[in-house]
């Protein structure tokens, strides 16, 4: 799978107009043809495509993803690995916020079906799903960072200050909350409809008939079964979150994979794009695997091997 992904990315990159040298040239400053061809041959861009790919692959299987073209002094692997932490932190926090907010509001909406509370949550969810990440990021930035001054406008730590967890959280909260909006909205909608469906099942009626308190009916009998489709959705929103993280990271200058990837695409930094997409691809595969495993834990009907 990763091999296919790497071939695809490699080809797509070479089909994109402009190469790293084109990105480097300032129209104001002339560079001689010899100089340009020397730069291209230093980077191996003058060799035939299959040769370039195989050379890359040969290195990649040994764990060497080459050097960044724009930051010539930095190996791609170090660059990408140093970005995983911040991205996992951002996406993980967003996921936790989204799961808590989505499930709580979804349950409330289902239980208080058609009440004003349900209606307002549903409207929020609709807006949340329909707002693209870059829009909510910019609005959030303007309102909470510029107007209200509750959180910093970007970065991961205060420049020049000593590291502290509180400082990190202070920088994290706004981008994580904004990133969680779309996921929370999606989880809320699935939670609501799934719980409503389960609440109409016979065994729920039986539980109620036995005189079980409504809270326990929902918490013990209905919720666990209703969570099944929600877990699948949570797994599938990871892809969405990666897309959103790219926007959030560029707006908030969060030093993660998304920002790295955007900068790399802008400068056609081939090795970095290849390395970053490969690692992201691997992460998505792992997350899907984890989703499947979680599924087996929650649903007793599914048994692993």
């Amino acid at each position: 799978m990763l091999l296919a992904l790497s071939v695809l990315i490699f080809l797509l990159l070479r089909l994109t107009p402009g190469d790293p040298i084109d990105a480097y040239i300032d129209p104001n400053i002339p560079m001689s043809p010899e100089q340009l061809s020397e730069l291209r041959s230093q980077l191996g861009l003058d060799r035939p495509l299959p040769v370039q790919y195989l050379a890359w692959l040969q290195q990649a299987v040994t764990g060497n993803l080459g050097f960044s073209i724009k930051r010539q002094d930095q190996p791609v692997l170090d660059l990408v690995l140093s970005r995983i932490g911040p991205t996992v932190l951002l996406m993980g926090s967003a996921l936790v916020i989204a799961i808590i907010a989505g499930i709580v509001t979804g349950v409330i909406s289902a239980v208080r079906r058609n009440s004003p509370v349900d209606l307002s949550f549903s409207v929020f969810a609709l807006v949340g799903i329909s707002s693209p990440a870059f829009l909510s990021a910019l609005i959030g930035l303007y309102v909470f960072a510029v107007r209200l001054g509750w959180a910093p406008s970007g970065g991961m730590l205060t420049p020049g200050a000593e590291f502290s967890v509180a400082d990190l959280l202070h920088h994290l909260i706004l981008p994580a909350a904004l990133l969680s909006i779309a996921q929370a909205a999606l989880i809320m909608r699935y939670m609501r409809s799934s719980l409503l469906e389960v609440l109409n099942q016979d065994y729920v009626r039986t539980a109620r008939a036995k005189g079980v308190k409504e809270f326990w009916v929902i918490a013990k009998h209905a919720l666990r079964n209703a969570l099944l489709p929600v877990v699948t959705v949570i797994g599938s929103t990871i892809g969405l979150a990666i897309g959103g993280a790219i926007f959030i990271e560029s707006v908030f200058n969060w030093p993660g994979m998304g920002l790295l990837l955007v900068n790399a695409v802008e400068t056609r930094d081939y090795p970095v794009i290849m390395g970053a997409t490969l690692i992201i691809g691997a992460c998505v595969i792992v997350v899907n695997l984890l989703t499947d495993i979680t599924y087996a834990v929650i649903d007793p009907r599914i048994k692993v091997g």
Partner: protein
Amino acid sequence: MKLRMIASALALSAALIGNVTLAPSATQAATLSGGFDVGPGGFQGNFNPLAATAGFTWLSVYFEPLVTYDDKLQKVVGVLADSYEVSPDQMTYTFKLADAKWHDGKPFTAKDAKFTMGLAMDAKSGSVLAARLKAVSSVEAPDDHTLIVKLSAPSASTLDTMTKVMMLPEHALASIPADQLAKNSWWSTSPIGTGPFKFTKYVTDQYVELAANTDYRGGKPALERVINRYFSNPAAAIAALRAGEIQFTYVDSNDVSTFKGDEAFKVIEGDSFVVNYLGFNHESPIWKDPRVRKAVMYAINRDAIIKSLYAGAAKPANCAYVADQLIPQGIDPYAYDPEKAKQLLDEAGWSQINGDKPITLLTYYTTPLATNVLAAVQAMLSQVGINVVPRAVDTPTYNSIVLNPKPDVAQFQLVYAGLQNGPDAGSINVGLNEKQIPPAGPNVVRARMPELNKALDAALAEPDAAKRDGRYQDVCKVMNSDLPWATLWVANRYGVVSSKVKDFIWTPAPGGGPYQAHPEKWSLGE
């Protein structure tokens, strides 16, 4: 019960946020933070002056060249050179070097200067200046305080190029082979220069921090630290400026109005030294008739665009220049006259040449301002019967199309672009001289105008500085009558600085300068 819980959670988080905001501000008393690499003059993530096509505003806070421009970008003055002399034949440049020390305490000598020149002239080091230093035939260091640069032919742009050669320490770099230099981590971990601040750390893609060089020969800097924050776009930098996290950034001209009249900020306005133009692709047959090119000039109401989109902060250009001393008497001002444009198109037989077929107008400008400008240009040209369709792409895509040695003319019959026209007036040569047609250079419009070549060559080779302006006037005259481009305007660019910052010098120089910014004098008041 529920409400109480929510209230206490809110109170807790408010307390947390409150605490955190107070903590760092106390440590930042003498720290100036800015977006020094935001905007067209910046080059975030580049630490190597040899590879710098921009970003000199920041690099020159810790590195120094021998000579630089003054803060008005009008004349070249000494920095690490106390003085310099140019021989009457314009072939020998003698620099008398100052008593300076590297940040590690070792003395700066002419040997370092010679070493740096060697790297700058060697394309293997990744130097982007190598082509511009081609005319240099020898560099000598007869003693510790003298550097002699000899040319094989006079080149009026030598001093301009010298301003971009940041001096590098031989003792730290000599052991690294030239072709490995760009890959070395020295640049972003432990570079040393001679400037008023010294490098302390770089946090990847977040910021660069410099600390005061207390031994600076120009006096101890007033600030303790200078921080260069990275932003992925000017809007994010403006948010940080408004939130008080940084004290300075470049600002796009359409955002400037929100800062004017605000006492907390000072708006710095300056000449961009970039002339914007519509470049006719001379390999496309549709522009062959000069009457068609003139019609484009008459059809665009530049005054209206300048007034409504640039808020008046641009000067219409009738050749590549707008500076008074470079404009000859009696050139055509091409005042807006759509009727005359239509008449010229009729005479040329435009309906046979192209008619209303769409003409691709390619640009690498993707700002909201540029989008509006092109919409206006499109509307104005369509009124006289020229149907242009703007297409904005990113810089690498643009370069790959226009610099292609075998270009697809249909992809860029017209370009909307900019070219540096100063402080060295010779800068425009690369965009117009026939010798610079790709792949040799960036004459992307493929102008082949013998008279223009002659005028440009004569101006570049003029040894007498007093006569040089006159030579560039000749260039202007040819451009004005032959129209290799439809020149539009030279716009101003802006920076915004907090009113708390004192003695701050900044100007929107092309590529970020360098120029005399005197960072050692910058200070923060209350």
